């Protein structure tokens, strides 16, 4: 009784605020009608509804060798509906029905997403919201019936609710729009791509620029709301070629910002591109490293990449999907056993390291970090989460879908899945990079290796810039060695880290295997930033990149044909 009254009160107060914005008003009015009246015969009524409307205005420019490849803009408005039937302890969420086959799977992934009119027409917005709500409700009914049936003959192993409760908040986060001089951006893309006209050793190159202003409006039936404008600008330069034996070599330069002003200057970009080209041409002649087992020092971007890909990827936790297909459920269970959830309370890093997820941060020593936000996509206020303290895993990152041991949301539901925001690796015992390099070599020599290995750039598992470091201090470049056997457990044996840290940003990586949430990702993936020191590992395995590569081109580059 009490909760019903509180709920009505919250809706009423958000109503007054909503009247100013046609879109929000349409969301609000349709939600109120649906909560009050939407019910099919005597089946479950919805106990929770949320609407999220995203207006995305984006522009993309790309070029190669000074000539445009694409130059387009788009404007789209999308609605995402989430309806829950049942109650907080058991609802329709987290269920995958395999009965319908591939098309059913596609239907599941895109369920609850609808295109909306670009015009702020109250009646038409409400019509589309109505139809999307109706479809999502019917699917919710089917899902809860399937889920109840699937659980009927099993003992439910976890007595954890499907949906945690939060205090609803209202939030507004309107960063200034990324205004662009379209001419400027086009000129920048052309000129940076034109640099490669002078580098015939590079087979293919591209510069890609995109700018996106996203306006999100969110409303749920508990009274939580937020309006957020997130501008984003990104630039990426890619170059690829082959070594003399055909091994593919590629590298990239990327930059992000909230406006064009945040991007590096053209002069700075040209320098970075020049360094990349020099690096690639050195790699063409560099030797291949046969198997290596020994200490490895990850510096700069490589440290951030190995931390992001191997360790940080295991931090987001979502409950295992329940399915009406036993084989699938088993496969999903196997996959989720790779996450760090089972290590709560266990030591996962050396004692001198803490890891902090901080969505409230916006800068780190003069560099921007891009993973921040004020509320997550479920309307949960952002907060710092100390994930690892003194090497011990204190918590994983969660959404409002609780997992064993973490009943509350840490506020990390981003763009349809749990993800980190800005991750900081903080150490209370550090060394200079020079000291680490010395330790690397000393420890290698102790093991009988003539050299240690320092990796400065890493792409997935491939070390695109790695060096043999000798006791006399000289270094030899090696080509595309591949990391093998590195797991979350490897991070327990970190020997030491540096005092200086680098800031590295990338789009949330595509998670391998089954989608962690059964819904498609629409639009650009969110960004995560990592603030990571150089890391010395005691024992890492590197192997030669497997596979046969195509021979280099039989014909000479036309760039030489002048």
């Amino acid at each position: 009784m009490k909760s019903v009254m509180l709920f009505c009160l919250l809706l009423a107060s958000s109503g007054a605020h909503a009247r100013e914005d046609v879109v929000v008003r349409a969301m609000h009015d349709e939600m109120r009608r649906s909560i009050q009246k939407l019910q099919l015969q005597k089946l479950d009524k919805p106990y929770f509804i949320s609407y999220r409307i995203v207006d995305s205005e984006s522009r993309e420019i790309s070029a190669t060798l000074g000539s445009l490849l694409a130059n387009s803009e788009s404007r789209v408005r999308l609605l995402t509906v989430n309806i829950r039937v049942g109650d907080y302890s058991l609802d329709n969420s987290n269920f995958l029905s395999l009965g319908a086959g591939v098309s059913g799977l596609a239907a599941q992934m895109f369920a609850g997403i609808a295109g909306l009119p670009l015009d702020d027409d109250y009646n038409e917005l409400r019509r589309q919201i109505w139809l999307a709500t109706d479809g999502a409700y019917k699917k919710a009914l089917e899902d809860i019936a399937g889920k109840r049936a699937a659980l009927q003959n099993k003992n439910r192993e976890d007595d954890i609710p499907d949906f945690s409760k939060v205090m609803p908040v209202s939030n507004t986060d309107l960063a200034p729009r990324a205004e662009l001089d379209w001419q400027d951006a086009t000129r920048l893309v052309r000129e940076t791509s034109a640099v490669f006209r002078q580098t015939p050793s590079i087979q293919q190159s591209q510069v890609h620029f995109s700018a996106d202003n996203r306006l999100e409006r969110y409303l749920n039936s508990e009274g939580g709301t937020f309006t957020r404008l997130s501008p984003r600008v990104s630039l990426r330069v890619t170059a690829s070629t082959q070594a003399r034996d055909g091994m593919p070599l590629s590298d990239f330069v990327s930059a992000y910002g909230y406006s064009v002003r945040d991007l590096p200057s053209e002069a700075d970009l040209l320098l970075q591109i020049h360094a990349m080209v020099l690096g690639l041409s050195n790699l063409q002649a560099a030797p291949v490293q046969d198997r290596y087992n020994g200490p490895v020092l990850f510096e700069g971007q490589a440290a951030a990449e190995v931390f992001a890909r191997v360790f940080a990827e295991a931090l987001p936790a979502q409950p295992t999907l329940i399915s009406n297909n036993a084989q699938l459920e088993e496969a999903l269970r196997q996959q989720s056993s790779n996450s760090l959830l089972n290590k709560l309370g266990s030591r996962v890093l050396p004692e001198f390291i803490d890891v902090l997820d901080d969505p409230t941060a916006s800068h780190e020593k003069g560099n921007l970090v891009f993973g921040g936000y004020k509320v997550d996509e479920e309307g949960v206020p952002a907060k710092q989460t100390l994930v690892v303290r003194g090497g011990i895993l204190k918590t994983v990152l969660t959404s409002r879908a609780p997992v064993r041991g973490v009943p509350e949301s840490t506020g990390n539901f981003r763009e349809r899945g749990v993800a980190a925001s800005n991750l900081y690796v903080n150490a209370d015992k550090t060394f200079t990079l020079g000291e680490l390099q010395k330790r690397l070599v000393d420890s290698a020599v102790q093991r009988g290796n003539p050299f240690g290995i320092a990796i400065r750039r890493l792409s997935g598992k491939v070390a695109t810039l790695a060096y043999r470091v000798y006791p006399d201090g000289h270094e030899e470049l090696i080509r595309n060695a591949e990391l093998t056997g590195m797991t979350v457990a490897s991070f327990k044996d970190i020997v030491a880290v540096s005092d200086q840290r680098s800031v590295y940003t990338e789009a949330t990586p595509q998670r391998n295997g089954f989608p962690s949430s059964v819904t498609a990702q629409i639009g650009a993936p969110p960004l995560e930033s990592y603030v990571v020191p150089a890391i010395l590992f005691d024992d890492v395995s590197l192997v030669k990149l497997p596979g046969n590569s195509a021979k280099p081109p039989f014909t000479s580059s036309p760039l030489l044909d002048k």
Partner: protein
Amino acid sequence: MELRQVVALIVLSVAALVSRSQNQDQTPSVLDAAKSELIHSLDQLKKQEVPPYFLSYEIVETHSVIVSGSFGTLTNSSENKRRQLHVDLRVGDYAMDNTRQMRGRTSNPLDRFSNIPMPIEDDSAAIRNVLWYQTDKKYKKALEDLTTVRTNSQVKVQQEDNSADFSTETAQQFVEATVPLAVNRQVWEEKVRRYTAPFQRFGNLYQAVATLSANQDTRWFVSSDGAAIQTSQTFYRLYVAAYSKADDGMELPRFESYFSFTPAGLPDDATVLRAVNKMIVDLESLRKAPVVDPFTGPAILSGRATAVFFHEVFGHRIEGHRQKSETEGQTFRKMVGEPILPDFLSVVFDPTLRQYAGVDLVGSYDYDDEGVKARRVTAVDDGVLKNFLMSRSPIDGYPTSNGHGRAQPGFTPVARQSNLLVLNTKAISRGQLKTLLLQEIKKQGKSFGLLFDEIEGGFTLTGRTIPNAFNVLPVMVYRVYSNGREELVRGVDLIGTPLTVFSKILAADDEAAVFNGICGAESGGVPVSSTAPAILVSQIEVQKKLKSQERAPILPAPFEDK
């Protein structure tokens, strides 16, 4: 910054500036750039052990504007320009080359399609660099494929068809000016709102969209034969679609579409609004119409229904490559010189015809996607099968192309339809056709016959492992009683097998109805048209349409809920 880096930076910037000013002095065309690279690559590849015997490049630019509206509001307004490349490189010789389809193996659909973006500006170095890189890649794949083809032909049974893999054709040179798009986007945005506004007041219509699109299609083709062709065409299209639902859940669609080569060829607002009103009336009638059970009996197919019918039943079965493939049904292959239709019907394919009965025909073109000049092909003359549609892939008895090698940009061309025309030498009026229908109903002792008026489109299956059926999807179907009364019905699909239905055509009227559409098959979507009179068939078979299991929305439309 190191001196070395500064110098490098200056050198790079100056070089970039210099190359840009060079570009402004000379403006090489796309054809010139493609020709240069073709010569450059071929000259060098000639020195290889297995040199190519043929090389061609097709570059297609698609500049499109798409504006969509729904229920009186704007949902999309975008413009896009892209260029795509298709490389045809052959090793071996005309008799046996790397493109031969291998028997006993399902061909990989990805081999037929390549997504190679090309610069959208006419810069020689940028264009040549992509062509060079892709030519080398294609060459390596061609060598691999040739080895497999040679082995496959030795291991498998002797082929039925021993024609060559590639025909010899006269190289063409032709350049026509590019035709610019003439679209006022704001005017179009108003139109899509206006065309869909009449649907607004209906809460039982679940979709009502209008899309205006303009496409400029410019193609460049060069070959080692000496071909050099530039063609340019614009297409304008208006498409209006809406659907409702019957009380039993069946979805009831209704479409209208218009194609033309110029914006002036699209219907004016008054015409469109009249069509929209008819759609609204039809949809309401369809909701109340009775369902028809599976039925066999006489029927009239309107001109448009017949046009689609011939496209599916006949057109796809005389595409040349199907006569050679051992997995295809090859329905008509051995019937050249035999009557397959009544003697008053002829079927002609004419890509050189741009208009018929005052309507633009979108299947027209001057040169096909293999650089062969388009020409009229008489497939059936007075009922007798004469010819197949041919690309440069010969079949027994047909060693040359007749200009029907077509593809969507990026796909490998195969023989496709152009503008199909069903010509009738014994034309009677529609009234007389209906009289004949009534006579046939009585003769067969049926209580009614059918009239197929509007159709959605169709599909056909020509493989050997599945029943060789076709399916034309009717939208407006009427029961015709023996007293002449017509009653709208719903829930029918028209099915049958080609040879039986052809033998049952009794008469045709004096209509010439044009159906313009996009036909999708192995080489992607290509614009085609089909023109035909209404026909009377003595025996047609219908089956029940797949019915949606989704109920109508639970709540009434918001504006109807008081």
